[in-house]
């Protein structure tokens, strides 16, 4: 190949990784990442206001602004922040990692313009007060047509990025810019892109007719059909996050510790299980919908979906296991967890990703599979337990992993260094800790029956006496305190990123500054460049620490799962 293709396109060679970074693609990585962070701020401000409203002793907003902010928060966090960032990952994974230029710069500009226009229009109409319909916008709730149009424009733009990504994969393969199978991180990004295509097609099927309805051009769509199609967008898009997040885990595990996947075939197999089965999980949202049969619900949320859960457990083992192997290879062999203590915890990119994996697996994963069980779901549906679950997956998992990646994007792509490194070291802990508290607060308040999406948890002004056990209000307070801590962590992240990107010292022509000691960094560099094969030792199968972690995880899973069945038996006596 290949060298011609590389030479033909303007590029630079990364001093740290030795990878070719194509300048056109680099622009789109940068601009998408910057836009993502801007919308993260918008969604984060709304999140703080919501946390201070659900905190029942504070109740900051009035009801109108509560629903406006919940719409703003959902759209910016679940759609704009995350998808803009994922677009940056697609450009990076398809060009730099495959050593090829992007397929079409014009297409990239068009998709960027559509996405920006869509995001701006949607935010404008929400803040104008003409779209207080929440992210789901279930009919007969009706928003201004610009709300639907904005999301449609954004989705079309994202679909064009996915097309550009697949076309880049095609030209890379045709030009033989890489040998053998594509790199695992790119394969993970391709998994995210495939899931994105499915999600965006469902989004079009739900939102285009709803847009026509809002214009008065057609009848309202049947609410049951809308819910089925909309969750094909709403939940599928969270699976894009899962695939992208796992790809980030693999990338950061390599760059921070020198880890290599234990068995690439198994890891790829797990990604394929995502491609085939993870989208069926959208049925979780419809478990109490009367129009769908138990066969449909149980097949989609259990039998088939558990194959995707298996995939997450494979990744959940292989990522820490690969790091354990790397750390033992460096000589950290003391006991079962000696390697764990010596991981590069001072590197905020690493600690963010490690916390992401722990929060995603131990809180998000366990609660998700349990709440997705049809029988148990009846206790939890539409309670705060549901946001308690997905804030652990989408925020504690995906957002924290993407924050971790930013600690590498800034030096590697923007070629800038950070100020305030001591604060950077605590930022992932602050944000992750806040999210864990908030998730616990939501989950436990939800177990007392506190509903999600409801302005006044006590139903003030209701004719009959209502309300919840006073303990529920303590957990709502925990939700609020956790939300405030997480917001401080988010704000700190933004300050660190903005000061580095716009005012940070340039490191052009230099290697990325290390967060580790020089000795540690040399060992990591050696593992990446030289590899593991030395002295005839086989380190690839010795992962006792990870096995113990896996057993702790499975035990936690079993306890939580059966505790919920016990709670169901208490609630629903069968004689």
């Amino acid at each position, binding site marked *: 190949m290949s060298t011609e293709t590389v030479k033909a396109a303007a590029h630079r060679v990364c001093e740290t990784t030795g990878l070719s970074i194509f300048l056109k693609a680099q622009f789109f990585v940068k601009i998408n990442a910057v836009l993502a962070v801007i919308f993260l701020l918008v969604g984060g401000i709304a999140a703080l206001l919501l946390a201070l409203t659900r905190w029942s002793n504070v109740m900051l907003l009035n009801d109108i602004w509560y629903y406006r902010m919940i719409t703003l928060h959902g759209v910016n966090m679940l759609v704009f922040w995350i998808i803009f960032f994922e677009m940056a990952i697609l450009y990076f994974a398809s060009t730099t990692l495959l050593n090829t230029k992007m397929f079409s710069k014009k297409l990239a500009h068009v998709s960027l313009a559509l996405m920006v226009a869509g995001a701006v229009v949607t935010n404008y109409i929400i803040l104008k007060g003409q779209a207080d319909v929440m992210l789901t916008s279930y009919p007969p709730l009706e928003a201004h047509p610009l709300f639907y149009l904005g999301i449609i424009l954004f989705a079309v733009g994202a679909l064009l990025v996915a097309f550009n990504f697949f076309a880049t994969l095609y030209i890379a393969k045709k030009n033989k810019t890489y040998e053998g*199978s594509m790199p695992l991180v790119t394969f993970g990004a391709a998994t995210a892109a495939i899931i994105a295509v499915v999600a965006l097609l469902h989004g079009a099927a739900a939102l285009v007719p709803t847009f026509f309805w809002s214009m008065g051009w057609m009848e309202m769509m049947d609410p049951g059909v809308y819910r089925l199609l909309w969750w094909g967008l709403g939940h599928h898009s969270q699976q894009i996050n899962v695939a992208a997040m796992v790809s980030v885990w693999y990338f950061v595990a390599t760059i921070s510790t020198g880890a290599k996947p234990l068995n690439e075939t198994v890891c790829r197999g797990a990604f394929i299980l995502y491609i085939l089965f993870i989208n069926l999980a959208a049925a979780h949202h419809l478990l109490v919908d009367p129009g769908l049969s138990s066969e449909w619900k149980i097949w989609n949320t259990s039998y088939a979906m558990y194959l995707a859960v298996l995939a997450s457990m494979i990744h959940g083992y292989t990522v820490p296991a690969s790091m354990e192997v790397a750390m033992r290879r460096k000589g950290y062999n003391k006991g079962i967890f000696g390697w764990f203590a010596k991981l590069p915890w001072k590197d905020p990119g690493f600690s963010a990703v490690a916390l992401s994996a722990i929060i995603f697996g131990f809180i998000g994963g366990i609660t998700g599979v349990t709440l997705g069980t049809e029988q148990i779901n009846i206790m939890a549906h539409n309670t705060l337990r549901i946001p308690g679950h997905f804030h652990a997956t989408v925020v504690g998992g995906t957002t924290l992993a993407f924050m971790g990646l930013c600690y590498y994007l800034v030096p590697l792509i923007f070629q800038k260094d950070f100020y305030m490194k001591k604060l950077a070291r605590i930022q992932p802990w602050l944000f992750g800790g806040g999210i864990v508290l908030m998730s616990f607060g939501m989950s436990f308040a939800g177990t007392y029956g506190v509903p999600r999406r409801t302005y006044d948890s006590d139903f003030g002004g209701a004719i009959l006496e209502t309300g919840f056990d006073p303990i529920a209000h303590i957990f709502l307070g925990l939700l609020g305190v956790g939300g405030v801590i997480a917001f401080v962590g988010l704000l700190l992240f933004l300050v660190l990123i903005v000061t580095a990107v716009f005012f940070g010292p340039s490191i052009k022509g230099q290697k990325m500054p290390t967060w580790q000691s020089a000795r540690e960094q040399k060992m990591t560099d050696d593992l990446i460049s030289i590899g593991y094969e030395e002295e005839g030792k086989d380190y690839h199968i010795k992962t006792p620490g990870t096995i113990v972690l896996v057993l702790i995880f499975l035990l936690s899973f079993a306890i939580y799962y059966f505790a919920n069945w016990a709670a169901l038996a208490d609630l629903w006596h069968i004689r």
Partner: protein
Amino acid sequence: MEKEKIHPIQKLMDNIWLLLALGLAIPILSYTMWGLIELMNIPQGTLP
């Protein structure tokens, strides 16, 4: 030079277009089409 023999599973894993097709087909059949068929076959409700 003799061409290296590639395992069929590996070929499947490397065929992104086949994975794209399967990734579209399975959820659309299992979740969307099946769900739509069930919803479309609900008899019209009548007022009491």
